[in-house]
């Protein structure tokens, strides 16, 4: 009798880990980590929906970025090596406010035109688009005293009226509903030099 009482009453749980491991491996194999992040963009409306209005754009309001089929950059007529330099150039152009004759009259008038070739790689396209949008996010952030990253998270939480107010302030949206600091990034139809 005394011997029986001494036996360990614990249930042997050493195989529990194996069972859990099996489940873990099953989930590891059958699942992918959700990746729903990326660069958001709004496409312009259908070509035939736009009325054929002669839009007069002043040459100096345009900031032109072109990438050829060999992924070489041409920014404002000058070749450029480092794509990271575009960011500051865009900011200088947009925030010029008429000081320099060769740059934009006001943020409202400024247009960033981005053109590629049919032979440009997608990686390069994303790289440049990233810099162009990043420049705008930084400018918006500065207007409301935030970093670009904080601004981007803010744009995801516009249900909050506080955020909405900051968002409208950053984009300069007045009482008349007009945005005075729009993100004018225009993606032109690619040229067909390196086409396929």
């Amino acid at each position, binding site marked *: 009798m005394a011997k029986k009482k001494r036996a360990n009453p614990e249930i042997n*749980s050493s195989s529990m880990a194996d069972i*859990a491991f099996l489940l873990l491996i099953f989930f590891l194999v059958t699942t992918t980590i959700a*990746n729903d*992040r990326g660069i*958001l963009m709004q496409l*312009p*409306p259908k070509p035939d929906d736009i009325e054929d209005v002669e839009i007069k754009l002043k040459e100096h309001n345009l900031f032109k970025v072109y990438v050829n089929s060999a992924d070489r950059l041409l920014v404002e007529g000058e070749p450029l090596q480092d794509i990271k330099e575009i960011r500051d150039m865009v900011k200088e152009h947009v925030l010029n406010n008429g000081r320099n004759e060769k740059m934009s009259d006001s943020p409202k008038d400024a247009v960033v035109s981005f053109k*590629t070739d049919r032979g440009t790689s997608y990686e390069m396209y994303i790289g440049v688009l990233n810099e162009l949008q990043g420049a705008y996010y930084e400018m918006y952030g500065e207007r409301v005293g935030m970093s670009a990253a904080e601004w981007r998270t803010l744009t995801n939480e516009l249900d909050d009226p506080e955020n909405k107010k900051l968002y409208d302030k950053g984009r300069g949206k007045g009482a008349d509903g007009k945005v005075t600091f729009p993100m004018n990034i225009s993606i032109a139809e690619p040229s067909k030099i390196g086409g396929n």
Partner: protein
Amino acid sequence: MHKFKKKTKSDPSIPTSALPDIIFMLLFFFMVTTVLRETTINVEQHIPKATELRKLQRKSLVSYLYVGKPTLNMQAQFGKEPRIQANDVFIAVEEIVGWVLQEKDKLDEVERDQITIALKVNNETKMGLISDIQLELREANARKLLYTTIQDMDL
């Protein structure tokens, strides 16, 4: 010497009772952070990196298009030129409008205009194809676009 003898009497095995708990914790982490794979991707996917990422609000409004070179086991049948994959099949550029309408039909009527197309495109794809896709999406009036990218860590 007597002192040392006592020590050797202690149980030499490592206590493993906490091991299942640790494994379960890992298991729950993976269960929460992952979604079940719905489609087999038959195109190469090396997604480009970017820094200025934004998150999608509503996952139910998103439809995915995969673009890239067909994977090795598909190349005999579909060649090496980049193709577009929607759901489980390869589609031609001209079929995108029809596909978008199908995807819109799956949504509630009030939300149809808010459909977002997520493009998962391989690095090496040429812009010609992407531009053709964008033209078709404009035609189908699905104008909200997300280029899926990976967060670039080195700044």
